[in-house]
C-alpha cells in the first residue's frame, strides 16, 4: 500500500472515529437535554401537587374551624338529630362542593365513653349520601383524632379513591359531641394541575388498598370500563388524558423514590411524551398510590433532534473538508515531488543525463532533491570517466597516425571539457545517449 493510500486510510479512519465520538457526544447531550426536561416536568408537577395540597388543607382547615363555631350544627350533632344536621349542613356542603371541590362532608360519633385506642369511628352523617350511615370506619386519621382530640389532616384512601381530609373534634357546651371531617378527592387535583402546568396526569392507586368488588361496581355506575386488570399492582383511578393505555406503569411503587422517577419517552401519534411518576403517601406514611405525569415534549424533542442532526452534518462536512485539504496538501508537498524525483531518476538512468533536479522548497524533501542532484552529478562524472577510458585507445591510435591533430594537450582539453560539463549547471555531456547504429 502506498504512503498516499495509508495517509488517506488514516485520515478517513480518523474522520470516522471523530464523527462517531462527536455523534456519541451529541446523542448524549440530546438525551441529557430530554432527561432534564422530563426531570423539570416531574419536579414542576410535584410542586404543583404540593401547592394544591397545601392550599386545599388550608382551605379545609379554615372551613372546619368555621363549622366548629356553628352553634346550630353543633347542637344538632350533640342531640343526634340527623335530619336537623343535614338541613343545617347540606346547603353549606353544596356551596363548598361547587366552589372548592369538596367531596367529603362527614360527621362521626364520639367513641363510647371509657373506650380508648379505637381504630376508627362510627359514621353519623354523610352529607352527599345521607342514607348511608352507622357504619364503623377504621382509618388512621380517625383513630388519631379520637386519640388526640386535635385537628388532623392528611391523605387517606377511601372506598373508591384517595382524598385529602381534615378531621377535627366538635364540642357542644364544652363536651365532645362528635367529629367533623371534610375532604377533597385527589382526582379533582389532576384537573387543577393540568390547568397549571399543561401536562396530563393519571392517578394510580395500589390495588392492595382497594376493594375489587366495590371498585368494579363504582366503575360500572360511572359508566366506565372495568380496568382492574390493566396493570399488575396498580389501578388507574383517574386521568386527564383521553387514552388510558399510555398511562400504564408496570413497575412496583415500592421502588419509586420520593422525588419521583422518570419512565422515559413514548411516541403517541405525532407527539412525543415524557413520562414519570411520583408517589403519594397516606397520613399513616404508607405509599398508597402515585401520580402519573405525561408531558408533551414534542417541541423540545424535535428541536434537540434537529440540533443534533444539523450539528452532526456540520461536523461531518467540516471534517471531510479538513481531510480533503490535508490530502491535497500532502499530495502537493510530498507525493507529487517524490513522483517527480522517481521520474527524473528513471530518465537519468535511461540516458537523459542532463535532466537537472532543482530543489522545489527549502524543506526536508528539498534537501533530498538537492542531494539527489549532487548524486546525479557524481553519476554523470562517473559515466564521463568511463567513456573517456573507453575512448582512450582510439585517441592513442589517432595520435599514432595523426600526432599533430590529437596532441596530448587536446586530449587533456577533451577530458577537461568532459569534467567541466559534469560539474556544470548546463549539461552538454558527450556521453548522452545518442543514436547507436545496430
Amino acid at each position, binding site marked *: 500500500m502506498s504512503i498516499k493510500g495509508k495517509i488517506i486510510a488514516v485520515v478517513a479512519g480518523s474522520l470516522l472515529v471523530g464523527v462517531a465520538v462527536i455523534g456519541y457526544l451529541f446523542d448524549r447531550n440530546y438525551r441529557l437535554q430530554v432527561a432534564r426536561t422530563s426531570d423539570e416536568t416531574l419536579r414542576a408537577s410535584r410542586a404543583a401537587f404540593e401547592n394544591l395540597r397545601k392550599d386545599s388543607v388550608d382551605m379545609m382547615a379554615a372551613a372546619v374551624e368555621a363549622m366548629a363555631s356553628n352553634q346550630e350544627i353543633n347542637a344538632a350533632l350533640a342531640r343526634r338529630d340527623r335530619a336537623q344536621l343535614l338541613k343545617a349542613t347540606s346547603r353549606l356542603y353544596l356551596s363548598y362542593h361547587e366552589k372548592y371541590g369538596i367531596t367529603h362532608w362527614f360527621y362521626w360519633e364520639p367513641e363510647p365513653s371509657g373506650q380508648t385506642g379505637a381504630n376508627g369511628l362510627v359514621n353519623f352523617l354523610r352529607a352527599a349520601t345521607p342514607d348511608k350511615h352507622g357504619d364503623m370506619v377504621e382509618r388512621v386519621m380517625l383513630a388519631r383524632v379520637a386519640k388526640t382530640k386535635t385537628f388532623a389532616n392528611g391523605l387517606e384512601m377511601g372506598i373508591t379513591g384517595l382524598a385529602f381530609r381534615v378531621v377535627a373534634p366538635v364540642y357542644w357546651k364544652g363536651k365532645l359531641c362528635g367529629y367533623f371531617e371534610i375532604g377533597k378527592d385527589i382526582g379533582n387535583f389532576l384537573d387543577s394541575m393540568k390547568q397549571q402546568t399543561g401536562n396530563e396526569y393519571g392517578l394510580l392507586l395500589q390495588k392492595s388498598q382497594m376493594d375489587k368488588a366495590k371498585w368494579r361496581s363504582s366503575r360500572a355506575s360511572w359508566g366506565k370500563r372495568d380496568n382492574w386488570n390493566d396493570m399488575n399492582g396498580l389501578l388507574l383511578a383517574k386521568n386527564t388524558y383521553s387514552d388510558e393505555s399510555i398511562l400504564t406503569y408496570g413497575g412496583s411503587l415500592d421502588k419509586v423514590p420520593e422525588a419521583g422517577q422518570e419512565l422515559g419517552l413514548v411516541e403517541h401519534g405525532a407527539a412525543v411524551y415524557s413520562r414519570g411518576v411520583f408517589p403519594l403517601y397516606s397520613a399513616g406514611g404508607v405509599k398508597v398510590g402515585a401520580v402519573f405525569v405525561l408531558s408533551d415534549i414534542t417541541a423540545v424533542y424535535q428541536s434537540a433532534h434537529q440540533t443534533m442532526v444539523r450539528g452532526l452534518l456540520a461536523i461531518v462536512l467540516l471534517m471531510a473538508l479538513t481531510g480533503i485539504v490535508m490530502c491535497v496538501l500532502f499530495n502537493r508537498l510530498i507525493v507529487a515531488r517524490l513522483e517527480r524525483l522517481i521520474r527524473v*531518476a*528513471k*530518465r*537519468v*538512468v*535511461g*540516458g*537523459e543525463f542532463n535532466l537537472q533536479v532543482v530543489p522545489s522548497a527549502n524543506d526536508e524533501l528539498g534537501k533530498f532533491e538537492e542531494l539527489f542532484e549532487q548524486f546525479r552529478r557524481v553519476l554523470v562524472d562517473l*559515466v564521463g570517466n*568511463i*567513456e573517456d577510458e*573507453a575512448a582512450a585507445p582510439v585517441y592513442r591510435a589517432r595520435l599514432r597516425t595523426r600526432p599533430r591533430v590529437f596532441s596530448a594537450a587536446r586530449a587533456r582539453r577533451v577530458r577537461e571539457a568532459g569534467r567541466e560539463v559534469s560539474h556544470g549547471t548546463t549539461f552538454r555531456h558527450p*556521453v548522452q*545517449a545518442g543514436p*547507436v547504429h*545496430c
Partner: protein
Amino acid sequence: MAQLFDIRCKLDQFIAERKLDKITVYGDIGLKAGFLVSLLRGNTPDDEAKLLKFRKAAQEVLHMSF
C-alpha cells in the same frame, strides 16, 4: 561477443515499433538490471550475469523476451 549490444538493438527496434518513450524504457530496465543500457556499445564485453539481468529486466518491464 556483443550479446548485450545485440539485446539493446532488439530493444531499440521494439521501442521504435511501438513508439515507446526510449528514455523511460531504458530507465526502467536500467534500474531493474543495475546498469546503464545507454552505455552498451558494440565493443561492450559480454557478461553472463549482466545478460541474465538484462533479459529479466526487459521481460518484467515490457513483458517480452529478448
